[in-house]
């Protein structure tokens, strides 16, 4: 999932069709790990694709997946911030959230490659830890890239990645 970014070597700006064809699955993976369910992940990806389409003219060749992950994260944060201000709807990132009952068919399908208890623990992480872990381990971004995107020092990123993983490790043990 975090393999080499093909545009790094090419140094060219891809077309939107190319991004949509080759990277929507990557964007979906990031969105799903952030949102924790398919419905919200689809909304995030759809909005992200639109922003990609409009933003490609400003894209500077480099880490395309890093750029895409930043867009997906921004969309997710915009939506969750809005929901936080309207607490009548359940939040995916509520630290006290309890994953009730078994997963639906879609969720079960998506969790095939990631144990349920890990996915649930990931969804239950505090937002800053979850984002740091996902940007590092799902999007494959360096600490420096994550720091630049989230606006916190590299040391804070390092701490968040570690603390997030430690929480997940507690679930494993």
């Amino acid at each position, binding site marked *: 999932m975090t393999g080499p970014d093909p545009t790094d070597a090419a140094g060219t700006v891809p077309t939107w069709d190319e991004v949509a064809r080759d990277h929507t699955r990557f964007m979906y993976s990031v969105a799903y790990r952030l949102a924790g369910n398919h419905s919200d992940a689809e*909304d995030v990806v759809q909005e992200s694709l639109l922003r990609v389409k409009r933003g490609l003219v400003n894209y500077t060749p480099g880490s395309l997946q890093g750029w895409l992950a930043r*867009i997906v994260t921004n969309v997710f*944060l915009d939506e969750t911030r809005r929901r936080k201000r309207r607490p009548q709807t359940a939040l995916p990132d509520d630290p006290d959230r309890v994953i009730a009952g078994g997963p639906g068919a879609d969720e079960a399908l998506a969790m095939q490659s990631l144990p349920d208890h890990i996915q649930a623990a990931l969804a239950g992480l505090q937002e800053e830890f979850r984002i740091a872990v996902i940007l590092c381990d799902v999007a494959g971004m360096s600490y420096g890239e994550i720091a630049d995107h989230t606006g916190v020092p590299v040391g804070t990123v390092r701490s968040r990645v570690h603390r997030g993983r*430690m929480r997940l490790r507690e679930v494993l043990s």
Partner: protein
Amino acid sequence: MNDDWLSAHLDGELPAIEATELAAALAEDPRLQADYDDLSRVRAMLREGTVELPAGTIERLVAAVAADEESPESAAAAPVVSLVSRRRVPTFAAAAAAMVIIASVVGGLGGSTNLPALGDLIDQHEAAAGVIEGAPMPDELHDMDVMPMEKATSEAPPMPADYSMEHAFVRGRTLHLVYRTLDGEPVSVFRHEGDADVNDLGGGSVVSSDEADMWSAPMDNAYVAVVDGTGYVWIVISAEPHDDMMGDLMHDLPTRSASLGERLRDAADAVVEPFRL
């Protein structure tokens, strides 16, 4: 050594000297080695795990975006608004029509990907406003560094004399200046290093001059203005219930004020003026 050396080493982010020290510690401490192995397993699980999608999901999402962009309706109006209002399903299960209207504004705010998430900045503004009222420092501000007022004053744009600077925070490339007007209204001015295309923000009003472009819109309980300056993007946020006040005044700005500082003053005035009436 710090605990987070373990993860940093796994990620290849630990400096060589510390890596050497960690290797020695791992060799001597079986419990530390066990922690390291566990973290390595978690990391591998996350990196190798894939999300299996229901059939046709990607094709459906791509087609929805392509269709939205190609429709005459979206070409004639602010496209972000049209996308959200015709989404596959209400975004994030939004139930109320009012919420969809707001979503149409919020949904466009990532068009300029250099900008921090504006929802985050609104949260920071609201948190700072609470601090002005005497509330303890909330989580939104914990990760920010407090900038000395003298330095903050030198970094600040020209502001009206009756605006007093109350707090200044900095995080990464973003400076957050918190003002209070004579009426007690908090106004946040964010200075973010970088550029933005305000025409990509969608859903709001855009005015342009030779010096800068400005975008503004109501978001939730706040008014937000984004000015694309030279090397900096300025974001002004304040709470105000008059939905179209900011947008209307923005259109007068190019002729009313030439400098960025004056334009910011006008933006702030637009937000707080109703409280003075």
